[in-house]
């Protein structure tokens, strides 16, 4: 890749990272407002965005408390939703190649959006340079905007309108899908994407939130195992 091509790619990735941060931040305002109305202090709500930094887990913790669940139930709900991040960091480790303080920071920034942006880039570009930029720029953009949005939501105790009225729920799903799309490069990847979606949809009516998505990982095990039996990569 020439220097010019890299500059163009870099600004494209940075723009995407910024727009993902903005879209996610609107949910951050909702999260801050929810925290404030659930009885968490502003500091506790902010601590979740700063220290937990994984939106689905944060919403799960606050919703569990709001519905009268105890401390252990809230911790368990948050960790259940956070389990998929372990699979993400497993996949990102050989791309990011970090140790020490950077490994701690990279782990902290490992969420749906940063992983999806990292993996949507061509890993062959400069030995993973584009993938790393996708991950770090998105992780940092979401971290900063998510935290500012949480503060805004908890201090004003109100959401900026309804995210659904803006179509943001559809926008975030479409954005993630647009990032999964380029990763579907083989029939094994296609089978995994389709199978994972089907498992999650089948389990959604009968399982508590979090389990259906996690259960989709079994599809990766089955397809990965049969892929290795075929022998080609």
């Amino acid at each position, binding site marked *: 890749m020439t220097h010019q091509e890299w500059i163009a790619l870099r600004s494209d990735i940075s723009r995407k990272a910024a727009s993902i941060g903005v879209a996610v931040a609107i949910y951050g305002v909702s999260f801050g407002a929810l925290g404030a109305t659930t009885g968490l202090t502003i500091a506790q709500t902010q601590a979740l965005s700063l220290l937990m930094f994984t939106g689905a887990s944060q919403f799960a913790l606050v919703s569990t408390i709001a519905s009268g669940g105890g401390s252990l139930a809230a911790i368990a709900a948050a960790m259940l939703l956070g389990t998929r991040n*372990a699979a993400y960091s497993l996949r990102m*480790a050989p791309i990011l190649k970090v140790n020490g303080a950077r490994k701690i920071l990279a782990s902290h920034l490992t969420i749906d959006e940063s992983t999806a942006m990292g993996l949507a880039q061509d890993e062959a570009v400069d030995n993973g340079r584009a993938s790393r930029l996708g991950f770090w720029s998105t992780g940092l953009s979401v971290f900063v905007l998510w935290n500012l949005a949480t503060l805004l939501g908890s201090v004003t105790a109100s959401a900026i309108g309804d995210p659904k009225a803006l179509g943001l729920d*559809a926008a975030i*799903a479409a954005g993630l899908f647009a990032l999964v799309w380029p990763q579907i490069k083989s029939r094994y990847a296609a089978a995994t994407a389709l199978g994972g979606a089907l498992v999650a949809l089948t389990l*959604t009516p009968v399982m508590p939130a979090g389990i259906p*998505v996690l259960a989709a990982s079994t599809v990766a095990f089955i397809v990965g195992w049969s892929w290795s039996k075929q022998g080609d990569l």
Partner: protein
Amino acid sequence: MWFTVLVAAAGCFLLKYLGSSIPKSFLEMPVVKKIVLLLPIALLSALVAVQTAGNHQGLAVDARTPAFLVAIVALRLKASFIVVVLVAATTAAALRHFGLAA
């Protein structure tokens, strides 16, 4: 409450850290390598599916479904990322604004 907040945050961080601490030699085993490669694809696809068709009660067909279909068309037409996201948002927002879908 601080106990809950801090323990849950530490737990979630440890999950993220754990994944990046698995020995390289294990990850380089051919079958493990393929499974790890496919894991985020399975999880992210499942997440997209649940975000598009799931709600508190179970599954639902609402404004998100046509928005998702429009996003697929945009992707197939090789639209840019921002365009894909904006057409999905606009579709869902418009259907809700005019009361055509929930």
